Structure formats: structure tokens, C-alpha cells
């Protein structure tokens, strides 16, 4: 009898099956995921990944008899009052007799939706599928490369830290065997023999002593480890493309931004945050909030704290420009920016902003997205075509062919579609 403890075996044995299953239901699952995202709070995304897909795509048909048709026999336990020949009304709902479970409802159930739970990873995978930072690394990749190191075999020279011990000793052993270096045990045995011979006054003594001398000489001449044995782990430099990006989040936090608008912007950035931290490993995020003056803040303050004041968009742009020059040289970084605002701006600020964008910000950026947040009720009647100061400023720039994308959002249900529009893979291609 054997006892085997399998508990420590790696889990997730049926993971490949799950992946196959998800691939099978991908289309419907994706739709279900996006619908659930519309209803849920963005913060809770993926926390409870319970979705249901129509049973149709994952049906496993078998030849089976139609239940509840034809002549049926039931043998049931627990008779109390029936005698042979009694007539019994059919139980409501057809199918089985006396509530028999002979697969009576198999037919109807198979049409039902199939419920299952996605992990957060799987949920976000489906949720963010085919989104992409537009043009990431497109400009830089070909030009700027750093060098990485990777293992590439062994070498005969190197630093002691990279000494490949087992390799070296393997070489040493084969050399010792090939050159017949006397082993320690042999020497010890011979010494013991000499000691015995000395004690017994053996005539072979001189021979033995000579032999010992010879062997000692030989093991001195053939060292245990020779420089010729040494092997070092070799590392080879290879070009490592830069895929580092920095994302600037600019937000207007002035008094004209209502709670609703801030909420919209917040949702947009959280979505962006999830997306970035998931899709790209080396992405830094800079948060800049502004009223009439701009400051760089951490994430918590950015989303959490309140402030009042006027609105001066260019202040944020100036701040961004400063940070770019100081820390994120466009030569080394892919720079993306997303700005959220209600569109209010001091009208005199327009030309300043335009100039800043055209001359400094946009040339340094891969992509600049502007999100205009509006009232929950949407544009009021009669104001359908109302365009804000900032919108007009940016629109002129966009017309001039600058890499600037702009969208307007009024309701939280629009956030996700707009986000997809801005970062969908198709858009990226269209802009190239």
C-alpha cells in the first residue's frame, strides 16, 4: 500500500480547461462583462466577476429521449394507500410521475443561461481587450535602445562572482581522470602499507617509498583545479527596446466643476489607471490638478481633496512642461496626457494655451486626449451646439492636424464607450 500526499501538488490543474472554456464563450462573455461594467461602480470592477452567458454556445448535445412523451414506467418507493388498478391524476407540470426525477426537466434547463464567476484578472482581460495606448513606442523603438544582459553559455574568463562551479569541477574531474592524478585514497593506502612494511622490516620498503615519492610528485604536478578548468557564466548584451511611458493626468478642480463632473473625470482616470497598470509594466503616472494655478499631487489628493479657485488651463500645461523637461525627456519616454475639464477657461488664456500645446506639449506627446465633462442632463435644448472656450481652443488645434483627441461626456454610462473610442486599437491604426 502506498500513501501519496498530493496536497502540495501545484493547483490549477484544470486551468487549461478553463482557458479553453473562456475562449469558447469569449464573445458573449465580453458582452456580458461590458454590460456589467456599465451598471457597476468602476471602483468595484472585477471584484465580483459573476457573469452569465447564454447556454447556447456551451451546450453539449447528446441523443436523449424526449422526456414526458410516450409510454413511461415508474417504480417508486414508499407506497401508502395505492392498490393495483388505482388511477392517479398526472402531477402538474407534466414530466415525471409523482415528482420523479428521471431527468424530467433536462430539456428546458439546457436553454437557460450559464452562470459562472470570473477572476479579477480574467474580468479585466476581457474588459480591456483590444485597448491600447496609441502609438506606444512607435517613435522611440527604432531610435533609442538600451542594453540588457542575458545568459548565453559559458566563457573561459570572467569575474569570480560568475564562476560556474559545477562546470569548472566537471572539467577538473575529467582532466584529473585523463591525466591519472593519484587519488587521495591511493596515497593514504600506500602510506599505510609503508607504515606496515616499516614495522615488519619488509624488503619492499625502498620500492614503496620510491613509489610514494613518485605519486606525490605527480599529484603536485597535476593540480586539483587548473586555470584551464575554469568556466564562467557568460552574459551577453542585447538591445532592449524602451517601452517606458509616462501618463499625465490633468484635471480642472476649480469651483465650476460640479461634483458630478468631478465624478465623471474620476471615473475616466480610474479606468485609465486600471488600464495602464495592467497593460504596461513601466508606466509612470503624474497627476496634475489645477485651478488658476497648478500643482503636481499624489493620487490620493488628486482624486480626494477639494479646492476652489478660478480656472487657468495654461497653468497646468506650464506645470506639465516643467515636469517633462525636468524628469521625462521625450527622447527616453513615451509621453501621454489626458486632460479632463468642464471646458471653462479664461478667454484670454486661449492663445497662451494654444501656443504652449503647439510648441511644447504636443510635439513631446505621443497622444493627448481631452475629455470634456458636462452636466448630467446633457446639453440643454437650444444649446445643442454650445461649445466651450476650451473646446473651441482645442478644436482649432485638432483641425490643424495635431495629435489631439477630444470627446465630450455627460453621463457616467458614456464613460466606458468614450474610453474605448479614445484607446481602441482601431483608432490607433486610423491615426497612423
Amino acid at each position, binding site marked *: 500500500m502506498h500513501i501519496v500526499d498530493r*496536497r502540495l501538488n501545484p493547483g490549477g490543474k484544470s486551468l487549461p480547461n478553463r482557458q479553453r472554456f473562456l*475562449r469558447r464563450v469569449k464573445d458573449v462573455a465580453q458582452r456580458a462583462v461590458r454590460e456589467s461594467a456599465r451598471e457597476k461602480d468602476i471602483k468595484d470592477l472585477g471584484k465580483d466577476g459573476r457573469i452569465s452567458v447564454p447556454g447556447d454556445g456551451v451546450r*453539449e448535445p447528446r441523443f*436523449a429521449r424526449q422526456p414526458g412523451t410516450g409510454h413511461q414506467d415508474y417504480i417508486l418507493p414508499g407506497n401508502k394507500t395505492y392498490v393495483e388498478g388505482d388511477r392517479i391524476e398526472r402531477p402538474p407540470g407534466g414530466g415525471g410521475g409523482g415528482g420523479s426525477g428521471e431527468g424530467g426537466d433536462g430539456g428546458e434547463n439546457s436553454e437557460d443561461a450559464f452562470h459562472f464567476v470570473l477572476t479579477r484578472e480574467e474580468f479585466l482581460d476581457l474588459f480591456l481587450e483590444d485597448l491600447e495606448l496609441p502609438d506606444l513606442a512607435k517613435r522611440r523603438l527604432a531610435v533609442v535602445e538600451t542594453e540588457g544582459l542575458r545568459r548565453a553559455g559559458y566563457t573561459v574568463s570572467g569575474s569570480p562572482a560568475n564562476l560556474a562551479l559545477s562546470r569548472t569541477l566537471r572539467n577538473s574531474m575529467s582532466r584529473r581522470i585523463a591525466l591519472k592524478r593519484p587519488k587521495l585514497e591511493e596515497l593514504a593506502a600506500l602510506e599505510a602499507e609503508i607504515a606496515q612494511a616499516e614495522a615488519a622490516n619488509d624488503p619492499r620498503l625502498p620500492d614503496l617509498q620510491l613509489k610514494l615519492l613518485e605519486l606525490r610528485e605527480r599529484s603536485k604536478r597535476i593540480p586539483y583545479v587548473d586555470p584551464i578548468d575554469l568556466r564562467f557564466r557568460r552574459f551577453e548584451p542585447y538591445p532592449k527596446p524602451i517601452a517606458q511611458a509616462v501618463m499625465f493626468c490633468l484635471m480642472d478642480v476649480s469651483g465650476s466643476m460640479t461634483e458630478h463632473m468631478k465624478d465623471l473625470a474620476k471615473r475616466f482616470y480610474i479606468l485609465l489607471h486600471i488600464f495602464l497598470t495592467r497593460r504596461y509594466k513601466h508606466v509612470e503616472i503624474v497627476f496634475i490638478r489645477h485651478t488658476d494655478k497648478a500643482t503636481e499631487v499624489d493620487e490620493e489628493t488628486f482624486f480626494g481633496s477639494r479646492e476652489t479657485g478660478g480656472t487657468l488651463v495654461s497653468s497646468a500645461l506650464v506645470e506639465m512642461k516643467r515636469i517633462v523637461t525636468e524628469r521625462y525627456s521625450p527622447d527616453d519616454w513615451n509621453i501621454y496626457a489626458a486632460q479632463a475639464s468642464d471646458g471653462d477657461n479664461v478667454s484670454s488664456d486661449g492663445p497662451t494655451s494654444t501656443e504652449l500645446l503647439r510648441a511644447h506639449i504636443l510635439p513631446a506627446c505621443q497622444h493627448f486626449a481631452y475629455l470634456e465633462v458636462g452636466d448630467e442632463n446633457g446639453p440643454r435644448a437650444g444649446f445643442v451646439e454650445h461649445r466651450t472656450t476650451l473646446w473651441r481652443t482645442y478644436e482649432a488645434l485638432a483641425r490643424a492636424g495635431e495629435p489631439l483627441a477630444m470627446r465630450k461626456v455627460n453621463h457616467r454610462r458614456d464613460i466606458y464607450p468614450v474610453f474605448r473610442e479614445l484607446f481602441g486599437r482601431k483608432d490607433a491604426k486610423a491615426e497612423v
Partner: protein
Amino acid sequence: MVASLSRTKSTAPKPGELLFSGNDWDFETIRRIHDACEAVAGPELGLSWYPNQIEIITAEQMLDAYASIGMPLFYKHWSFGKHFAQQEASYRRGLMGLAYEIVINSDPCISYVMEENTATMQTLVIAHAAFGHNHFFKNNYLFRQWTDAEGILDYLDFAKSYIARCEERYGHQAVEHVLDAAHALMSQGVHRYPRKKRPDLASEQRREREREEHGEQIYNDLWRTLPTKTGGQKGDPALERRRALLELPQENILYFLEKVAPRLRPWQREILRIVRLVAQYFYPQRQTKVMNEGCATYCHYRIMNALSQKGQLSEAAYLEFLTSHTNVIRQPNFDDRSFGGHNPYALGFAMMQDIARIVEQPTQEDREWFPDIAGTGDAMGVLRDCWENYRDESFIAQFLSPKLMRDMRLFHIVDDPDEPEMRVEAIHDERGYRKMRRSFARQYDVAWLDPDIEVVDVDLEGDRRLILHHKALNRITLQKEDARRVLQHLADLWGYDAVLKEVDPATGAVLVEHSASARPIFF
């Protein structure tokens, strides 16, 4: 005192010493439990079993095992992922408890036991699976005839790597299509009878010679004067020949496709073969559900009682065992809300106990009904014989006693759609016993439960249309939507049109006809 006893290192448990105390166990305990059970199962019950391999697993691994129909390794397919998701969801919501064990018909016999089980439960599980089921797997004729316990794990290993290689080579999609189609036809992928062995030339000659000699021996000139039959009803010889060549009619549809389908590529045939062999491996289990569980339950009951009598189980442990034993063999009545058909554990265990009673303390009635075994005294001998030579259907037809029918208060209802009400056909009385037992046994005849579908003909020279018949027993037709889908899979594999006619076996009238054309997904 108890604690010090349980800490003894001896592996051979002595009577009167507790095997364990409390709920905790370690490997030493498991080994002791196994040896103690073995001491009962061998000499007292006369069981014979494959060597045991007991594997401890976690709840998650148990779910994993569920998803791949209990086998330790299996090929990958989305449907297993689906079942896993389903079971995991209901397990997490507390709708479903997990089995205490899974046992695999292999040599050595692998029993998976859950780490959460208490020491008592481990004893129960080892007695149940490692000895009860194990004995049944090794000795029952169906398992011996149809399954290869020694080779199954190697075969599954081959199947898994073969399908993985196919996926690499021909793409996930292509393999998935074949597997989908093969799974849909899985229950039509078993041989129900051993195939005729092709005679070799020597035996053929010998038979011919014997036949001639026999003809010479019984030669009588009178036969010559008999008038010959006029106009013998011979069918079309070409048709007969084709049907014979294709071994038609053929009820093993997967086998037929594997051998005959004109357009399948070799790897697709191999996948059909894998699915077919897996189906064949599990077919005996479907046919012996009641007996298999009955055997295992009876064995664990005997072993646990023996252990308790020898003083190797504490009273607390024995009570825990009884609780879970009675839960397992609970049979709700038909009007109970929790009724979901017959519980194979309950029926099996009740029948085994009843047989033991008949053998040891028969009544007059038993002597009339079971003259062969009543009063012979060797209960285990009779039971071992049953376990070896019967399947559920024949076992119930042979051994369900009037007393048990009365105890279970069985009654038989007939639901004929042509009549306004259902009728009580028989109850547990003198007139009902035999009728009811016959119908009851039939409900366990898998060949009777599965729809009877055969490939009857194929027009190889014409449009290559495959013709199948479903013999609609009692005029019960197939579920339309599923039948259409399965037939579509079948046509895809066949590569040309396929038509399924549902025929009333009594009149030969075609009730429903389904047809499907091959989609170009395989070729």
C-alpha cells in the same frame, strides 16, 4: 490511556487497541487503518483487490478531479472547464458538498481521499473505496471484460499528450471541433457485445471438416426427397455484401466513423478512437452503479462493525460512522420533497443485506423464491458470486426479494399518454412482485435507457448519404433540438449528408426524420 495507546508505533494493529482517537490523523494512522481494514477484508470477507494507493488531496484538487470525470489525468477540453466552473460556483455557494473520496479502476487502485475528513471518515472511506470498490473493480465480469485496469493510466497519459500534440500541430480550433463532435456521440461509442473474432484459416478448416463428418454421420437418404423451398427470400446480394463489409447495422457510431468515414484524416480518427475507448472504459460503471455502491457500502459496513467489535474503534468514532452511514443510505419516499429517484447506495446496501439474510436466516417465502441460495449459510460466498457475475439489471431481476419490495413499499405506475390518468400497475403484493421486479430491473438496463440508434446503411456509390435508425421504444422520440445538433456533428465527421429516421419498431413506420449536411469545418 487512550492517547498513549494511539501513539503506539506498531503497524500491525492488535485487537483491542484503538486505531486512533479524536479526529486527527497522520500517515501512520492511515497506514494503521488500512492494515486493520485489510485484516478484516481478507480473512473475514474473502475479498481480493488490486494493491492500494491512497492519495490525500485538497478540496480544490477534488474539484479538479470532478472536472476531468474523476481521472487523475485527462486531455483538455472546454467542457471540463465548464463543469469545473459550474461545480466550483455551487460548491462556493454551499449548494454542494464534495465527495469524501474518488476511486479509480486502475491497478494499483488509486483512491483519492479528502484532507478534511476526520480519522473516522478516513477509515470509512478506506473501507468503502480501497476495499469495497476495489474488490468490485477487480472481480466483476464487466470490468474484467471491458476495462484494462493496468493500462488505463498509461493510455490516458498517451491520450493527453496525443491531443496536446494535435492542438499544437493542427490548431486548437480543429481539435476542439473533433472533440465536440466525438463527445456528442460518446454514448453511441460503446460496444455492447464482444465482437466476433475473425476465425483463422486452421480453425476454419477444422470446422469445415467437422461439419462434413457430422453430415456424413447423420446422412439419411430420405432428406433428398424433401421438396425444396420455392423462391427463397434473398435480398439484393450487392447490398448484403456492402452491409457485411461495413459491419452494418452498427450501433457503435464512433467506431463506424473511425473505421469508415471517408474524409477524416488519421489524427482525427485517432481522436475519435480515444473518446470511444474512454466511453468504453466508463460503460461498465454505468451498468453497475447499484451493485458497485452496494458492494462498497456493504463492505464498509461489515469492516467498520468488525473493527468496532475488536475494540479498534472508540464509541464516538462508531457513532460518527453510523451517522454518516445512515445519511448515505437514506432513501426518501416518492412523496418526499427531497425525492430524486432511487438512491443506488440505499438500494444496493439493502439488497446485499437482504441476500445475507436469505442465505443465513431464510423464511419459507425465501426458500420458494431463492431455492439456490436460501439457507446455504455462506453469505459472503453468495455475495462475492453476485459481485462477480451480475450487473444491475440482472442482479435486480434475480435477487430483489418480495420482502425487500414490501419493506421499500415499491409500487409501479404506468403513464400512457393515450389515457387521461396514470395507472397503478402493480404494488408490493403477491400478484405484483414478479411484474414489478421485471420493470424495475429494466430501469437499470443501460441499453434499454439509452436510445437505440444504429447506422443501417450508406449509399457509397451514390451521394454517400449515411442512414441511421432510432428504434423509438414505446414511441418515445428524441429531443428534437439536441438530436439536430448531434446529427450535425455526425454529418460533419462523416463528411456528407446524414439522415436519422425515428422508427416505431412495432410497425416500422417512420415517426420523425432529421437530416443534416456536412459543414466544411473539418476539411
